[in-house]
């Protein structure tokens, strides 16, 4: 029983990592007032770039940089549309999702001719598990052993980066001047503008931060969790991250718990597939797949607390009427 639990928790950590990174990415963007439903597209673009470049260079770090670059590029496009041109942020996000889905499959097929996937990564192209010191030695110790050597040790570096990003994000947003301004610009951009701070530049920085984290999230999928990119690899994870962001009420620590919860649901669903639970019977796997979305809708309906988005989210800022 304990072992099963450790196994489920272990895969929970693995499955929630990309959600967490994308969720924190969305946090920066939405806190600054830029709604981003293009998380999915940015992750997909990054996953492809990372997979392709890591295959060619056989270097996971260069792959990661390529993933971040593509994701930031798409983020800047979103910024150009929604900050500079004051376009509809939802429409822009939808466009980015389409572009990423189409371009990754198209370029993947043109460059590698394997039906849109990138070839398996060579040695060095993939982030490997980091085994903590003495993990093997204390594996047999009851309780602490499995927790240390299965749950904490033996993940790749991006997993640790994701969980480290939570306190860092909290510190940036709630303990720095930049963070204060970022949150202010999402609530009342006119006030920030009056204080002589550029709304445009602040929001662009938020969009870039979002791009960087989304880039890590996408790269994790193609060069850490698996070896290479496959079509539609993100499979809705960007939208689950968006749901988690709402579920977390736009707060970093909550975001971690929301992502862990959604990751846990996913891990449990995989574990329970085809197994009957005593007293309840077999739960269809589709139920677990839909559960994050159902929970988010229930939350949005105001039945579990209330999710209040940043006040200026989705509203383009117009400095002066001309």
């Amino acid at each position: 029983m304990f072992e099963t639990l450790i196994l489920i928790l272990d895969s929970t950590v693995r499955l929630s990592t990309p959600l967490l990174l994308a969720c924190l990415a969305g946090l920066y963007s939405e806190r600054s007032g830029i709604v981003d439903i293009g998380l999915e597209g940015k992750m997909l673009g990054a996953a492809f770039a990372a997979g392709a470049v890591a295959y060619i260079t056989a270097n996971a770090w260069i792959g990661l940089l390529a993933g971040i670059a593509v994701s930031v590029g798409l983020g800047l496009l979103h910024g150009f549309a929604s900050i500079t041109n004051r376009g509809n942020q939802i429409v822009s996000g939808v466009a980015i999702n389409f572009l990423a889905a189409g371009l990754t499959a198209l370029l993947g097929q043109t460059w590698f001719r394997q039906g849109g996937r990138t070839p398996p990564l060579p040695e060095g192209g993939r982030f490997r598990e980091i085994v903590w010191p003495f993990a093997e030695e204390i594996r047999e110790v009851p309780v602490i052993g499995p927790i240390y050597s299965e749950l904490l040790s033996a993940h790749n570096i991006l997993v640790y980066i994701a969980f480290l990003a939570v306190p860092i994000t909290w510190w940036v947003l709630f303990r720095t001047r930049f963070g204060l301004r970022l949150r202010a610009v999402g609530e009342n951009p006119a006030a920030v503008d009056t204080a002589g701070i550029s709304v445009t530049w602040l929001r662009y920085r938020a969009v870039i931060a979002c791009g960087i984290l989304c880039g890590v999230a996408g790269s994790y999928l193609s060069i850490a969790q698996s070896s290479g990119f496959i079509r539609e690899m993100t499979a809705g994870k960007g939208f689950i991250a968006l749901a988690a962001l709402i579920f977390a009420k736009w707060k970093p620590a909550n975001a971690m718990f929301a992502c862990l919860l959604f990751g846990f649901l996913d891990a449990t669903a995989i574990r329970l597939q085809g197994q009957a639970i005593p007293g309840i019977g077999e739960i269809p796997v589709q139920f677990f797949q839909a559960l994050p979305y159902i929970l988010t809708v229930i939350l949005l309906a105001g039945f579990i607390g209330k999710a209040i988005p940043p006040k200026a989210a989705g509203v383009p800022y117009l400095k002066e009427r001309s």
Partner: protein
Amino acid sequence: MSAGRLPRWVDYVLIPFLNLAAAFLVSGLVVILIGENPLDAVRILIWGSLGYGEGIGFTLFYATNFIFTGLAVAVAFHAGLFNIGGEGQAYVGGLGVAFACLALDRYVPWYVTLPFAILGSAAMGAAWAFIPAWLQATRGSHVVITTIMFNFIASSLMVYLLNNMLKKAGSMQPETRTFEDGGRLPFLNDLFPSFGFGYAPVNLSLFVALAASVLVWLLIWRTKLGFEIRSFGANATAAVYAGISPVKTIVIAMLISGGLAGMMAINEIMGSQHRLLIDFVTGYGFVGIAVALMGRAHPVGIVLAAILFGMLYQGGAELSFEMPNITRDMIIVIQGLVILFAGALEHMFRPAIVRLLTPSRPLDAKEA
């Protein structure tokens, strides 16, 4: 945007044209990047979609889907709502069509089944839009987010239903039994053999879609409800002050929107596939956003935009035969670019045009 007033033809013709041209220009660059000649690609695309009867038939078949989903997005637009749940509403709408066809196809001819299929699909689509609508209206949960969530819930629900309840006995395929003649709409090729639509699945639901376009036009611009929807969309505060009920307007607009999206299933399920199956929507709901944006949320514009996207779908399929380097994913790229330029960047060319068209003021003349 209040920056300068422009003549109507600029707003309704020139700017959409420029946006579209920009989208196609960038698409051409993508084609060059892949190493093909964009002009050849355009020629194949146009010939493949309009050059022969069967091609036209396929173009119209796809256009039928896009008219329904485009109208769905447009009706919500007029109420100031963004329904991006067309995908899920159309998917669940398939249930309504399938129930009508499975119940009636062995006993009555298709023209008796059709009204039930229309009602069923519209009712199921509307039902799927109801919860997001009601939550938006009464609890303020953003309809964009809830409709996205409902797309995913619909997808899980339909996979479950098809795998566990609707699957025909003794089959591994997650799909219902094939409908008999009473559950099949006639193909236009059988009705009008002289057009030579060949094997194209374009069917009678094209006329249902055109009728829906007329009805939507009547509803939005010629009825009290339409006036309320437009007023609410233009300025919700003023509309409420004028005595328009926000809850009623939001819910009704979303129900109509969901119903129209659901009716897309008539074309796919009763018109072409003749059985309910997994993933028959494949993005048509999302394309509705592009169609509505390009068509400026007006039924005439939507029909034209739907035909254009139908051409892209059919021509793109042809293109992937002729130029194997350009897979069907190219269509998704073009759609993304159209949504980007015609939607998110729609104001990009405006300041330049305002500057070009506004005559210089007397003040400037004095300085010069």
